[in-house]
């Protein structure tokens, strides 16, 4: 057997878990069969590590200051993101941006696994992948949000989006009050990862 091409950022100074071992074995097999190269794995890891919630925050701030951009973003995210120089590879799932308003608050979950708008937010936080979040986000979304410190008025409808298939959802949070005079750059700093998942609102200045 050839040496595993497993590429990770941590050192295995502890015994590997069964799942990690299986992943290394599958990766080595794929390489042996010529279906995957170490370079391809490295590039994919680099691509993912290069994506952070800062990308999503830039997009949200732009939508807050530019209504026509926001309309294009909600209608067809791929072309709107291209305007900002954010290229979404063709093979990635379709990104749908959903807008929080005075009447509706959106919350994103993947009950089946951990589908997440990685191209704009990077890797999901561990809690997003936890069984607790995945089960409770659909059955008690207001309770989950309360635990994140988000008290939602009863007259705002909650729409939970369960991304079970080929769509990935990003929440466009409401623009906080008192931000009228702020620049796009300043606004970007109010947009948190959690507000783009929908468990919180954006920060207030």
């Amino acid at each position: 057997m050839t040496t595993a091409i497993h590429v990770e950022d941590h050192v295995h100074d502890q015994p590997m878990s069964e799942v990690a071992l299986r992943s290394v074995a599958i990766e080595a097999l794929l390489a042996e069969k010529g279906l995957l190269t170490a370079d391809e794995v490295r590039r994919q890891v680099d691509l993912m590590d290069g994506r952070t919630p800062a990308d999503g925050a830039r997009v949200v701030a732009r939508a807050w200051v530019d209504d026509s951009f926001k309309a294009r973003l909600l209608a067809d995210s791929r072309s709107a993101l291209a305007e900002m120089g954010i290229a979404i590879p063709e093979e990635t799932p379709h990104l749908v941006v959903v807008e929080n308003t005075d009447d509706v608050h959106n919350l994103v979950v993947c009950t089946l696994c951990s589908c997440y708008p990685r191209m704009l937010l990077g890797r999901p936080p561990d809690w997003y992948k936890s069984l607790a979040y995945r089960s409770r986000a659909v059955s008690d979304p207001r309770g989950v949000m309360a635990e994140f410190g988000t008290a939602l008025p009863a007259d705002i409808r909650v729409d939970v989006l369960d991304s079970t298939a080929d769509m990935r959802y990003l929440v466009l949070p409401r623009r906080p009050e008192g931000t009228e005079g702020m620049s796009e750059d300043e606004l970007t700093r109010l947009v948190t990862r959690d507000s783009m998942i929908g468990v919180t609102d954006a920060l207030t200045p």
Partner: protein
Amino acid sequence: MITMTTPAESVLYTDGAAVRVRTGAPAHHFRTPAYIQGHTGVVDALCGVYPNPESLAHGDDGLPRQPLYRVRLRQTDLWPDYSGSPADTLLVDVYQHWLEPA
């Protein structure tokens, strides 16, 4: 390579159509969570027509492609003891072969 010209099931439901999620737990991979099965909702939008993941997961070609809908269900229908607002909804993506008219 799957393109828009590959075989696809025709789109059966329009926005606003009442649909019921079929029940079942096939031995193979599927994407319809148990908690929505048997429940009735409304088509919110057609997302597109995508290769069938139940076929793709087993190394097959995913054809014919299946229409994928965003279906809106009422939280109070899904969870008898739902404690939020009666207006709250759940939106979930469901492939056409898991839906029937309601």
